């Protein structure tokens, strides 16, 4: 049996598959369906300092091989998360990654600090890329200077490894990656959703109450793969890859592109057992394509820097 073990800063994973932030709540609902211990890790819904109610409804729309969401960072606030959600998750033997959002650098720092101090999380994921709230961090995700600043400030404050979650809504993802790498990030999560919209024909206006929403699902996988591949050429940081993963083959594609682990988002929403199915099939898929373990797959991408200059 092929071992799926993989290691990233702060994270010793039984397997490289974790649910993506926001698509798994705080794990409670899924724990009624299967044993969370089978996951590589859990990434929880974004935490902000105060509780947030999120956007008006409708909050989701269906698109071709994808969906739009504009949840708007609804969450009970970091204090409640530290008190109620993290202790619940700590009963499972899997790393917990806490997703952090904020409107100001101070908010990011304060939230990260509180999460860090619980001792119940193994990594932080800075969500500088939520497209669904004006003050939800995307301005940090579009400006390399701000991204570096928030990363540096959080790093100064916490001991837990910090992953920065990059936004694909940028002309130059490599520049963003390098900025947060220099600022001390321990790893990258990529990609968050692309900003999109759907017009409701009967009402003649945007279907989502928030007008725009984040596009996720298989539709965006080629963009995610390209970004992971590009960043891998120019940054040494380990990458948690995501964007449209719904099969074990997709996981391997991300590993070959340059990711060291992956997160599954939208697939959980149409199939709550998606992570389980992927984890079950992954060893066969690795074997089929000639890999004995995760390391080989991670190192296995035929990436040629020279080639890239052609593109």
């Amino acid at each position: 049996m092929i071992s799926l073990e993989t290691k990233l800063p702060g994270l010793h994973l039984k397997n490289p598959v974790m649910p993506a932030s926001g698509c798994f709540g705080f794990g409670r609902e899924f724990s009624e369906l299967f044993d969370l211990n089978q996951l590589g890790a859990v990434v929880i819904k974004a935490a902000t300092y105060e509780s947030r109610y999120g956007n008006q409804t409708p909050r989701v729309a269906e698109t071709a091989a994808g969906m739009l969401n504009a949840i708007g960072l609804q969450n009970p606030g970091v204090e409640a998360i530290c008190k109620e959600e993290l202790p619940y998750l700590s009963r499972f033997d899997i790393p917990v990654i806490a997703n952090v959002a904020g409107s100001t650098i101070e908010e990011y720092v304060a939230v990260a600090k509180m999460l860090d101090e619980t001792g119940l999380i193994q990594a932080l994921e800075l969500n500088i890329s939520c497209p669904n709230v004006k003050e939800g961090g995307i301005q940090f995700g579009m400006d390399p200077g701000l991204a570096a600043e928030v990363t540096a400030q959080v790093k100064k404050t916490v001991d837990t490894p910090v992953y920065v979650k990059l936004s694909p809504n940028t002309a130059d993802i490599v520049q963003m990656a390098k900025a947060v790498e220099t600022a001390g990030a321990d790893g990258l999560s990529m990609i968050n959703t692309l900003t999109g919209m759907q017009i409701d024909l009967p009402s003649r206006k945007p279907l989502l109450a928030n007008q725009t929403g984040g596009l996720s699902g298989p539709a965006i996988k080629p963009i995610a793969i390209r970004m992971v591949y590009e960043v891998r050429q120019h940054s040494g940081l380990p990458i948690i890859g995501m964007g449209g993963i719904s099969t074990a083959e997709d996981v391997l594609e991300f590993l070959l592109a340059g990711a060291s682990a992956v997160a599954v988002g939208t697939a959980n929403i149409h199939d709550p057992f998606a992570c389980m199915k992927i984890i079950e099939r992954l060893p066969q898929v690795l074997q089929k394509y000639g890999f004995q373990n995760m390391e080989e797959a991670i190192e296995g991408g035929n990436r040629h820097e020279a080639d890239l200059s052609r593109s």
Partner: protein
Amino acid sequence: MIQTELTVLANNKIAEQTIEMQLGLASDKLVTEAEKFMPGQFLHVKVGEADTPMLRRPISIADMDSDGNITIIFKISGRGTDMLGKQSVGSQIDALLPCGTGYPVEELNLDTALLIGGGIGVPPLYYLGKTLASRGTRVISILGFQKEDQVFYKEKFMNLGETIIVTDDGSLGEKGFVTDYMSKHIAEFDCFFSCGPTPMLRAVTEKLSGRRGYISVEQRMGCGIGACYACVVPSKSETGFKKICKDGPVFAANEVNL
């Protein structure tokens, strides 16, 4: 909640663009589970292949028989329901079930219940009415449809008790809106139950404000299990939202802001 393949046992067109489908559970073990399914709960159905279409569709339980077979009634209103309606007898349908919190029929001891349904809000009221009637409650139903072609289950509701059919154009039964015909029974019921489009629910709860009642709320859904925060409705008591797919779709009439 479980994820399972249901077998299509029957597929009948019962009104314009409206399909009644009977679905069978795969195993006896599930049938035992099914006895606990409550009126107001729903199935979250996946049609098509893999990611096409992407999202599941919520469809209410319209009836259950003693073998644990589930009846759903749905209107063909888009791509997903169109594909669902084309499933032939014998084919398999992937569903999460039972989803959500239904009507608290076990806790209620009612003399008279008033059911107020509109369009595709009518199906869950049938299973509710049947359950209430079997517990000795007198059931009065006011059911609204756009026009005659769209009316379904008239006889079935009449078997449960007094039933008023209302159509927008008066092509069958009374003409107008369900809210126009509630006054007649206003003094009689202990509790009302309403399901239908949001504007109707708003009108009903306004007219019956102060009365004990339950409403079933619709919203576009993602996961259907309470994890993605797609399907919320503002709560009246606390500041914040309730999740329709988990805390609802049935709420006490004074619990949420429509």
